[in-house]
């Protein structure tokens, strides 16, 4: 009995804490809750981790907070532990001369598209 109360209290406070309820009544089921259940994660902790990671990667503290707040729970769990490994638009490794030559060739045959001035041969 006691346990159940504690559990109810905990789950209710976690829900409120996570901002699940946009409505005046705590008993309403929020739309986000209707999505398939997330793997068991402490989402709030993951949010904190991602914020710290963003700051480590050069994002300003205040911006990092706003940016993480704009992410959905699904996105937060997707980012968990792999932020730095995900593709980030406009990141290329350093170009070596040999690689440069290869890329010119592969651009010509249309396998890559690194150099906009090269028109692929059809």
């Amino acid at each position: 009995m006691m346990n159940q109360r504690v559990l109810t209290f905990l789950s209710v406070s976690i829900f409120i804490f996570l901002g699940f309820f946009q409505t005046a009544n705590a008993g309403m089921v929020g739309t986000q809750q209707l999505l398939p259940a997330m793997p068991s994660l402490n989402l709030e902790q993951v949010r904190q981790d991602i914020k710290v990671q963003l700051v480590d990667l050069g994002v300003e503290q205040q911006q990092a907070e706003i940016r993480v707040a704009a992410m959905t729970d699904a996105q937060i769990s997707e980012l968990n532990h792999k932020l730095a490994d995900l593709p980030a638009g406009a990141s290329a490794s350093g170009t070596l001369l040999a690689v440069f030559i290869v890329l010119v060739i592969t651009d010509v045959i249309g396998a890559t598209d690194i150099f906009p001035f090269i028109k692929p041969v059809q």
Partner: protein
Amino acid sequence: MSVLKPGYRCLAGLAFIALTSCSTAKQSIQLYESPPDIPSYVELESAPFYPQRDYQCGPAALATVINFHKPETTPDSLVPQIYIPELKGTLQIEMLAASRRLNRLAIEQDGQLTSILKEVANGNPVLVMQNLGFEGYPYWHYAVVIGYDLDKREIILRSGEIKRLVRPFSVFERTWQRSKFWSVIVVPAGVMPVTVNAESYSKAAIAFELTSAKQQSLLVYQKGVQRWPGNFLLQMGLGNISYALNEYSEAEKAFLTATKLKPQKAEAWNNLAYALIMQGKKKQSLKSVNKAIEIEPENSQYRDSLIEIGKLM
């Protein structure tokens, strides 16, 4: 000589990858064989162009799709919102999140080249991610598809520093394929793209709600329900947002539809009970919340609802 060897080896390796990946532009081939029923040439010339600086193709491409419908932002003001200095780039997730922060619905497409073309024909530019290099030597890049020419088999993009980059479908498909065919439509609330399904739309709507004004969200759900009246999630979303705006009879209507669509979903009966009690419909409300408890007797949330509704009487 020995210095050059590793280079040659690398060259051979990359050339092999290049040759194998050349044979895989399947969607482009299908496009020639059975072209979709769309105009043969479309170009959204009014799509704004922001030449990217340094590594900032993310902010530039995002500003293009966001400002297409009405001016809202600049690449420079997007930089602090989405750019990650150490990664020298922008994550896909943040492209979506930033769109929402700027009052736009960001909807992921189904990975079909024809979906991109159909949406462009419908008048919406499409944001894409590409890997212009290889799997092992990635050059991640964001661009915006603004047009195509079926006869010439070409796609037209706003890309990097090029205002009008024209590429064969097949070359585009190969570079796009390496991002797992990631493409996104970014539209203001109230605009319904033609190439999205109920699932991706409702996912975008729920995310949109997180950071948007309630009136805007209401519009998003109304449009969704109009197009997919049989979608449970959208009906629930419409009910919840109407309820949050104190539009209880609208909420009741949506929740009631939800209970008809999925009579075994306790959530719908529970929320319906709240919409009813707020209109003073005590008897119906009690009946509805009891239905939720009947479906999920173990769930304490619905028993709490019963207590709360009792207090509201």
